[in-house]
């Protein structure tokens, strides 16, 4: 089992906390020793929200050092791009859910919001691999994080990160209708 740095990012309110919790629990169930840390507080108000996850034996700090992420998981395109520039290591992998939340600067026309092409260029420039996820069968935007999880299962980037274990984690975190709807995404 390889040591791995996983960096998750999105915009406050998108459900990064839940995504991070499913990731860390599932990796733990898959037999990795895990350390993680989330952002809380101010940034949740429409700012960038991130979570760090480090798996493997030789891990001390829970924080992924800049430019050292093996995998970036993003819930939004601009945040995916930011993470590719600042956190992804050369030759890293990125999976992102392709929604676009404009910033104040984007809306005021001061800075442009990145296009898909610009994003993919940036990943290529660092020799990375990119997977875009977008599904039109999602009834509630707060389920986009589960759509990513189900895709991560299929990609097999993390040994042992199986559908069964991911579902087990979800079942620990949700109940009732919400859970059912999320499970349908697998």
């Amino acid at each position, binding site marked *: 089992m390889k040591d791995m740095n996983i960096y998750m990012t999105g915009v406050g309110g998108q459900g990064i906390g839940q995504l991070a919790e499913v990731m860390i629990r599932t990796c733990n169930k898959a037999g990795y020793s895990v350390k993680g840390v989330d952002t809380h507080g101010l940034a949740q108000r429409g700012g960038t929200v991130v979570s760090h996850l480090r798996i493997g034996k030789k891990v001390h700090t829970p924080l992924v050092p800049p430019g050292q992420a093996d995998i970036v998981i993003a819930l939004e395109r601009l*945040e995916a791009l930011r993470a590719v520039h600042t956190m992804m290591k050369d030759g890293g992998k990125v999976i992102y859910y392709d929604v676009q939340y404009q910033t104040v600067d984007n809306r005021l026309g001061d800075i442009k919001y990145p296009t898909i092409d610009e994003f993919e260029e940036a990943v290529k420039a660092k020799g990375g691999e990119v997977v875009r996820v977008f599904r039109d069968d999602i009834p509630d935007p707060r389920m986009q994080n589960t759509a990513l999880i189900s895709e991560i299962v299929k990609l097999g980037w993390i040994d042992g990160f199986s559908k069964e274990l991911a579902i087990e984690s979800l079942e620990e975190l949700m109940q009732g209708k919400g859970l059912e709807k999320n499970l349908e995404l697998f």
Partner: protein
Amino acid sequence: MKKFGELIVQPDPWEGLIMGNHALARAMFEAGVNVVTTYPGSPTPEIADAILTVPVDKRPLHFEYATNEKVATEIAFGASINGHLSVVFFKSVGLNVASDSAVQLGLMNMVGGLVIILGDDPGANSSQNEQDNRHFARMSYIPTFEPATPTEAYKAFLEASKLSKKYQIPVILRMTTHVCHAKEIIKFGKIDTTEYKYEPIFDAKNGPFLPITKSVFPLKRKAFTRISSMEEEAETSNFNKVYSPFGSDKINGKRLGVITSSMPVLSLLENLDEVEKPVDVLALNFSYPWPKNKVKGFLEAHDEVIIIEELDRIMESEIKSFAYDKEIKCKIYSRTDSEDLMGELGPDRTWKILSEIWPEIFNPKVAQKASEFNNPRIPQMCPGCGHRSAFHAIKQALPKDAITVGDIGCHSLGFFKPYNMGEMLLSMGHSSGTAAGLSIGNDKRKILAFIGDSTFFHAGLPAIINAVLYDHDFTLVIMENGTTAMTGHQPHAGSGEIGEKISIDKVLESFGVKFIRRVDTYQQKKLTEYVKESFDHKGFSVVIASHPCMLKFMRGQRKKDNYVPKHVEIDQNTCENHNVCVEDFACPSFIKNDDGKIMVNEDLCIGDGSCKQTCPVTAIDFKKGEK
């Protein structure tokens, strides 16, 4: 699976994946804590969240959200001198508010024990500064633990409460943001379920508790004696240990070591794993008072030592002066670049420090090239936030040269584009005092100050009373949203969740405020008028700009079975691209396409409709077909 609220008080030992703050709550139950108080502030609010998952009738301790950190500290003190093991916790700057009382604690006997948990914030992730509260510990003679991981935080709390009871001394547990929020597997112990009988055992003979002239010196002498006993505890404490992962050989004829504490311990261990060289690390996580013999031994065993601590050079100056007195030969290096005295010291940053001193071991790597990226995402008020309506409306009433004074809370975000309101900030509740100062000798420029409702009760009142007494000429806008929003919706005196709601209006009336207006912020025109009126009023005036926190409201709505999402839409035939909604009102739900067309992001829009009135051609309306 057991619910979290059951697990956290489960008497039997268990093991789980858990965050530092939650582990502290478990530690409190295991330690048999009786009284816990706090005022919310990042990075510590999740400690309270965890305690509150346990229903009151099953909660084996008394918990209170106090009006502010000073009150919280005093409650914990009062409970402790009555024999109850008490805990008070708050964020870094909370100690500034608490300090007038907190600095006395180290002088007195905490009969039942008292642990102070501080959430310091190196990196200022969610604070107005990154003050190093280890200074306060020294100023008030309070022993301090600085855990590096959630597991260590849990263990340090148990140890702190044990020492506190044994010596009747307060003990500080200094957490930092990413220790509070780090998650890992922790093995917990058991909880003693014997019911605690509250007996009010206060006796002045257990003191003195009154630091007047005559007792000040004896109290201080005692504080020194106690700190010496703590030093002995620190000598044998498991929290102070040497790591030699790659042995203790010489490198180029020299033995090298690092002295550190808290999170940087982990960073250094990462660095060592990378070089696999015999550099020893002395971790002092029971950091004040630090163990003199252990440190002496470490210095004497090494030819060169670097002291790397997060933020200020506290241990460094103490250890250097100690080494000078003891004539220890070891060469002690320090951080010389002032940049290294700021922010968190992750592995990349400790590496940089090491590489400047021992470049032959720690390669001064080509500086990690984080490529240029400039497309910032500044935090914003939520869709539907009443504060946004308030800023938009108040802007229409402001003369160009008006001065606006910000305060702490979600409404601090008004400073950012496009509102640019609230141009200065010191601390919670500063705004009325600062505004009063700005009004002196000033009959030219209008002054408008903001304050949130939790802050009003927390630290706002004294300055407001002062403004009434001198009738300082400014307008105070109270941004009332019925909750302590920014820190996660904790109750406050005016929210009606703890006892009966205390009315801000009545408080102000009783002070004798002559101009008071109240308005729901969604009535933007009326709010604009009130603010204009308040400017015409000579002297102190108050406008209460009220609207419930919509984030909290929506969380409640979404939980309901019959919840149906609502949105607004833009009639593209009517829209003339005045762009007021997207540029001036600037709700994040509006998107501007490259062709200039304005759209609604339905993932974000909550259909509150506060934007409708901002459109000069009424192109915005509730979405057809939705109720």
